[in-house]
């Protein structure tokens, strides 16, 4: 136990706890004029998430290797059930009612996918037709199912993490470049298959003023909130955009604009600094990991954080279209928080195992 404490990555933990404090402050400001119960709930989610985080710190990674394939199969099965018996909410069929709560199979799939890809590349490099093709096929089926729900955000996460893992696993650059060119060339085709509301989001991004009270309203109002915050912000609980409800979804997807309005550029730099510390720490742990599986796992997790942060802040500040991804550790929401803390628990476990040189597979394995 003492050794375990000694092997903890304190920088990772410190940046996580700082994010927790900052997130709870910002959420407090966001719900201050509304439902304070949400803040208390989030506090409970933090407690639950941190418990999960701590538990995972002590679960040997090799168990993960064991559950990854069954998890993937279950996730796929549930995903296929969604179009048949799923609940429709806000125009998308994403949820399964499992009695006591609603389950989002795409959420399970996201993590299962990463475990499967990490164990696939734990013993292989992303070179050769089979080594690249098989994981792509493993991703393509669930990705197509998720996209058809439709859930663009999760699909993006899946694709982005897959690309990151392929690159980490040594994908030849020329294949990457070719795929990139092909991807850009296929954008018009993608456009054709997009839903009207998704097209509208893209159009709104290009010119938010074209529909200032319709789809562009969210982006305009959050830009006003961020811009009016200035260098030092309007002060804690003093943001007029937030207080007077001009911001849409200000405790979930648009919470960044509350932080930017009340805390100004100073708070934004603080947040981005914490994220930079967290991500680079995860990457450092990936670099030092004792097994290739652990490295892949950390890289996948880091890529997901990067995507969440970039898409969320980019959306709120008007760089990207409105895609519903939460801001890690800041946005209100139990399941997202708990899964992200669990993911960090895995990273921490990697750090511990690397420090203590705990073998994750039988000795003599080729890529150990």
């Amino acid at each position: 136990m003492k050794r375990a404490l000694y092997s903890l990555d304190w920088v990772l933990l410190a940046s996580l706890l700082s994010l927790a404090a900052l997130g709870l402050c910002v959420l407090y400001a966001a719900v201050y004029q509304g439902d304070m119960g949400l803040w208390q709930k989030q506090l409970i989610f933090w407690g639950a998430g941190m418990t999960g985080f701590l538990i995972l710190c002590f679960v040997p990674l090799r168990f993960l290797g064991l559950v990854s394939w069954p998890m993937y199969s279950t996730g796929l099965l549930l995903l296929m059930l969604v179009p048949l018996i799923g609940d429709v909410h806000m125009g998308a069929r994403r949820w399964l009612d499992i009695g006591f709560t609603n389950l989002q199979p795409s959420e399970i799939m996201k993590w299962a996918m990463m475990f499967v890809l990490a164990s696939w590349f734990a013993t292989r490099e992303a070179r050769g037709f089979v080594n690249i093709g098989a994981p792509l096929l493993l991703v393509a089926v669930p990705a197509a199912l998720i996209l058809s729900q439709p859930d663009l955000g999760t699909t993006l996460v899946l694709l982005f993490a897959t690309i990151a893992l392929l690159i980490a696993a040594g994908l030849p650059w020329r294949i990457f470049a070719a795929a990139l060119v092909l991807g850009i060339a296929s954008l018009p085709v993608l456009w054709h298959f997009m839903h009207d509301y998704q097209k509208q989001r893209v159009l709104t991004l290009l010119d938010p003023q074209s529909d200032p009270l319709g789809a562009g309203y969210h982006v305009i109002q959050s830009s006003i909130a961020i811009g009016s915050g200035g260098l030092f912000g309007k002060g804690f609980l003093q943001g007029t955009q937030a207080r007077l409800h001009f911001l849409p979804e200000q405790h979930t997807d648009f919470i960044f604009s509350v932080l930017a309005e009340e805390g100004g550029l100073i708070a934004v730099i603080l947040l981005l600094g914490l994220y930079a510390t967290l991500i680079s720490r995860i990457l450092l742990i990936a670099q030092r990991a004792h097994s290739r599986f652990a490295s892949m796992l950390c890289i996948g997790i880091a890529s997901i954080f990067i995507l969440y942060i970039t898409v969320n802040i980019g959306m709120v500040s008007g760089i990207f279209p409105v895609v519903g991804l939460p801001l890690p550790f800041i946005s209100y929401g139990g399941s997202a928080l708990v899964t992200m803390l669990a993911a960090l628990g895995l990273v921490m476990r990697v750090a511990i195992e690397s420090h203590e040189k705990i073998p994750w597979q039988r000795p003599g394995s080729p890529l150990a």
Partner: protein
Amino acid sequence: MLNKQLEIRQRFNVRMVCFFATTPVFLGLLLFQIMQLQWFEHEKYQLQSDQNRLNIIPLLPVRGEIIDAQGKGLAINHIDYRVTLIPERVKDLDATLHTLAHALHWTDDKVTLLHKRIKHTRPDRSVLLDDKLKWSDVSPLSARLHHYPGINVEAGSYRQYPFAELTSHIIGYLSLANAGDVDDGFLPSEFIGRTGIEKSFETSLHGHLGHQREEVDALGRRIAVINSKPSIMGETVQLALDADIQQAASDALGERTGAVVVMDVHSGGVIALLSKPGYDTNRFITGLESAQWQSWLNNPEKPLLNRATQAAYPPASTFKLVTGLAGLEHGSHLAEGSTFCPGYIEFSDRRLHCWKRRGHDSVNLHKALVESCDVYFYQLADQLGMGIISDTAQAWGLGEKTQIDLAPESRGIIPAQSPYMMAAIKNTQSRRKKWFRGETMITGIGQGALTTTPLQIARLAAAIANGGSILKPQVLAHTPAKVLHQVKVKPEHIQMIRSAMRDVVLSNKGTAHRALNKAAWTSAGKTGTAQVIKLSKNKSIDKDILRHHKDHAWFMGYAPYENPQIAIAVFVEHGGHGGSDAAPVAAAVIQAIATKQSRASDAQASNKHLIRKPGPDS
């Protein structure tokens, strides 16, 4: 094997470096965008944020009232409730209008009209949807107002004209601010004076806009009032006009078309200024239907025309006073002597008739004015020439604007003023062959090209009464007299004219004798009958001729004769004869003024009596 592992490890390390390098790129992109917003464009967004949260509600001023000399309301305000809408704050315009239409019982046409009006208004400006509502109409709505963002129920006031048609031309009308007014800073829901006093004294009457700055939330709901500046009510404007006298004039004129002007001979105060037919100025406040407007415009009686100031007619025999004054002042021996009227005058190849075909026998200036002999004035005008007549007419305030504060105003025409006619008179090069001698002669009796407004004629009467002061007609009460210019005229000459005017009323042969001799006040005056077309010598068709070919009837004069107070001009369009048709109107007006004054002095006397009463007891 080991090499292979080393190679894989090395490749992995290279890829890790790529990841370390890419992370700052993503975060840097975000930071750049945020800096753009928070640093470089901060001011712009700060402004937008303030505009978001601050709502400036205009507080419309209450328009000043217009009262008559006795304090009777001519244009007053009634408290009402109105519903306004700020387009940009409305989430669902159609649904909102539908709900309001149901609550306020609007027709579909009105909804369509409002829809159009809202589309043409700047989204941040409030649009008037409905007004003149009672509290009972709006109270259910105002209780549920938070369901309809962008809708406001405001207490306001609306204009009412208790005398409507009677005062339409002097008071004028209002209408909602148009695009041009909005550019000048008015709100679309403000009323602006368009004619009459409402226009002339717009700046005093309008008052000053106030505003209330409020903090509102995203639904337009008021969170707090930050500050407010109350509106300032417009000033009350008191007119010299007396509604009772105006009413008396209107009653006397009855259904006939025409104008009556009553002026204070000393101050120039306009006691009555009536033009008939009038129009209901209240209709402009409720929202004038274009059908009504068109019917006014197309009405041959031209109800929108202010005949007292905007229309000029031949002054007919009332002008003989001017010709007579010109003769006296220029030492014409005809003016001091006499001539013979055989009922006509012949010159070159033409013959002009006197109205009295039998002739007036021997006539001097006095008799010529009293009996309105045309032949005498043909001769006098012929002797004086057009230049002298024009100069005298101009000196007495004809052919120029009276400067009354009721624009627009007609100047009337004095032939010599027009360069075209001047050229003709001087017989210089002109398209017109020649100024005929006969034209000067008929100008001498107020016919021909000469035209004057009833207001000018009333002012002429006032000037004769007050000894030659040409006054600015004052529409406001308690305004000191403004003498525009003083006519240089010998007192004995003006006295000769006055005594002739007196005999027009007093003498058995005077043209206004029958109408005015028995009035409560002694009066002096002159009648006029303006020929509209040259009637055939056969007078038997008189009864059959179209109304529009009937002569205009004039009367002008002043009263009381000994101590003049008021001057009056009566004009009856196609009314017939001055003595029989216009003079009785003047008689009724003078009677009304006299009665009112004697009642007022009685009241004053009894008041004094009451005050004095306790004196001896104590």
